[in-house]
């Protein structure tokens, strides 16, 4: 009975996936400068919003017991995404639902903040395949702009004890008291948390601290949830954006103890810069569905023993050997999935230090590089590979 139910469920997923293609976002060209744009700026009324789905990252399970319990039930989220450009800068606005406002706390060890990030592909000549969605891959760098939710709240005991909170909006407090308050906030280091990283793979993520990237991001919480804005130059030493800009979006929910991999993220989404020639091949790659036969692909996946090392469906047994794939269809491009089947070492999904699961070594280090222990499936015929890709594209959580 359980088996039957699973197959009915997966059939349902196959059908619904066929309908959902990723949107193409148009970055509207505006004449005003975007330098100082925030989430609530008036200029956003000119933007065109598209719905992007953000899937829970489940490739790697982390070792935080409570967080794992909380995130086990996380579903895919819908986000409204829009973009603008002024010829020099690109601005991205992300709106997503989150009932609770979780701020970066400065006196607790167990609280986590909401946040969002926008990932750009680094400057590379080859457009395909795009960098691995999980912070890039070797030779294919990404730049990630991260903003965590912060607010100037001075909380003497870190208890979320509202009666004990003092905040800047209390108009009874001004002059020297306000200066004292600001000093206390500063002493708690409860300041803006905006970071820019460059990465060539999850482990390699490195903060850019030398000011070589301009970044202006902000978050605002309202009844509908968060709005997060980011403005960055179209061109700098890390990225050269033009025509079609691939971006991916991630959001974190602090009340689910979300941080780093415990997040919802989108696949690469195409943003066409208005007034520039789009990259038709990239737009097609990112916005159309896989052409293979998913049902045949599922059979082929079973025949080739994928489930020996990978958790394929959410209901399957967990394995430390390979990354879990039950959301891989949500946040991966077909090109990435194809590449992983044919050249498993092109991207070794970075995980823990191998010591973490010494009995299931999923990679070896050869000449300083991680080489996957996965078999090379390049012997499969092209149609079968496309079928498996189509099947993998159906593996994703339902939407909240």
């Amino acid at each position, binding site marked *: 009975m359980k088996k039957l139910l699973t197959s009915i469920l997966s059939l349902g997923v196959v059908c619904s996936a066929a309908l959902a293609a990723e949107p193409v976002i148009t970055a509207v060209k505006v004449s005003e400068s975007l330098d100082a744009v925030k989430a609530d700026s008036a200029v956003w009324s000119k933007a065109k919003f598209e719905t992007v789905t953000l899937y829970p990252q489940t490739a790697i399970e982390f070792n935080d017991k409570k967080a794992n319990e909380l995130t086990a039930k996380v579903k895919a989220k819908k986000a409204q995404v829009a973009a603008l450009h002024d010829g020099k800068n690109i601005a991205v606005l992300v709106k997503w639902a989150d009932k609770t406002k979780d701020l970066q706390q*400065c006196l607790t060890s167990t609280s986590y903040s909401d946040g969002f990030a926008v990932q750009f592909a680094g400057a590379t000549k080859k457009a395909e395949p795009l960098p691995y969605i999980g912070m890039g891959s070797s030779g294919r760098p990404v730049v990630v702009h991260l903003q965590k939710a912060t607010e100037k709240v001075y909380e003497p005991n870190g208890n979320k004890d509202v009666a004990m909170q003092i905040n800047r909006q209390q108009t009874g407090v001004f002059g020297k008291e306000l200066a004292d308050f600001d000093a206390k906030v500063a002493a708690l280091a409860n300041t803006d948390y905006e970071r820019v990283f460059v990465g060539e793979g999850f482990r390699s993520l490195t903060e850019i601290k030398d000011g070589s990237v301009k970044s202006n991001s902000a978050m605002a919480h309202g009844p509908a949830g968060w709005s997060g804005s980011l403005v960055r130059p179209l061109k700098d030493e890390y990225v050269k954006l033009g025509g079609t800009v691939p971006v991916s979006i991630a959001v974190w929910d602090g009340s689910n103890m979300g941080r780093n991999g415990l997040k919802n993220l989108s696949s690469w989404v195409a943003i066409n810069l208005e007034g520039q020639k789009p990259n038709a091949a990239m737009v097609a790659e990112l916005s159309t569905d896989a052409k293979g036969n998913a049902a045949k692909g599922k059979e082929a996946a079973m025949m080739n023993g994928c489930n020996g090392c990978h958790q394929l469906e959410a209901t399957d047994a967990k394995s430390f050997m390979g990354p879990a794939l039950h959301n891989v269809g949500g946040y991966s491009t077909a090109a990435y999935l194809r590449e992983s089947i044919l050249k498993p070492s092109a991207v070794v999904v970075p995980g823990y230090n191998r010591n973490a699961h010494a009995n299931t070594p999923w990679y070896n280090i050869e000449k300083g590089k991680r080489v996957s222990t996965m078999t090379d499936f390049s012997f499969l015929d092209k149609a079968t590979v496309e079928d498996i890709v189509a099947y993998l594209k159906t593996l994703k959580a339902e939407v909240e």
Partner: protein
Amino acid sequence: MSKRQLAMVMDLNKCIGCQTCTVACKTQWTNRNGREYMYWNNVETYPGTGYPKNWMELGGGFDAAGDLQPGVIPNLEADYGVPWDYNYESLMGGQADSNNFHPHVSPTWGPNWDEDEGTGMFPQDNYFFYLPRICNHCTNPGCLSACPRDAIFKREEDGVVLVDLDRCQGYRYCIAGCPYKKIYFNPKISKSEKCILCFPRVEQGLPPACAQQCVGRIRFVGFLDDEESQVHKLVHKYKVALGLRSDYGTQPNVYYIPPTESPAKFDAEGKIIEGSTRLPIEELEKLFGPEVHGAIKTLKAEMQKRKETGVSELMDLLIAYQHSDMFRLDNNYYQQVAKENKRNPLAPVDTRYIAGKFTKAGGHH
């Protein structure tokens, strides 16, 4: 595994629970900048809840198959304790609220909340002993394995486990992964911090602050592969120093001489029960593994030998006539390392933790 390994041995028979080590460490490293609640070195009463509260039950470490076990991150207020202060200033200044001497928050928990409680019934069979704890600078660290950012590393030169604060992003998986809960979250800078085995002191030939200040002279420090070192003799030659909870699979490098001596129990009339001992061997076995039987046997035999013949290298070692006899830090070693690597001998031997080092690099492989 590192090329060499620094180790510490603590003789639990000599620990008097004075917390001098705790204070030495606190004033040296953790009384500021978001570390106020942390005790890189603490001394807890065993049996007791420990620090943080019930740390032995919070997961982490490895199972027999070598898989990292999930763990729980302790809560600052409930499990570590908010470091409270008193209203000294207003009391001394004769200000309005100076009538009461009171803490600035109502404390609900703190380190050593249950100090000296122990267990059993006074006076029949109650007992406790002190258990000083620092980071174990493990050979297979749970914190290092748990970090998805490669922000934790073990120095090749001496096996000291450090956090690269430039790479750390405050995810806290390391805290879940450490079975000893000896790595802490600094909420002010949103990064993890831990005992650094006083490496800036050690590199200059000085023992760690906790060991230097120890009035009971319980702490030996040296390199495990140095056959002349006290730690080598206690761990490998006499096998009387054992790792704490080695069953967690991290291969700790802080070793303990188990407590061997405890008074006899009293019966209902308050008379000594001959041949009894208050310290249950099962408890020692839980902490130090089955090897504890052999260690106690050796210690007792050497004690007897010393009484009979006046000669015992082991007893001389443990007595530590001169405090300097407890450390063999071989300070030329670090200078040699610097020379081999063409580094300034005054600079730290490993600079990976220095902020900003990787800013421009595309990757960290």
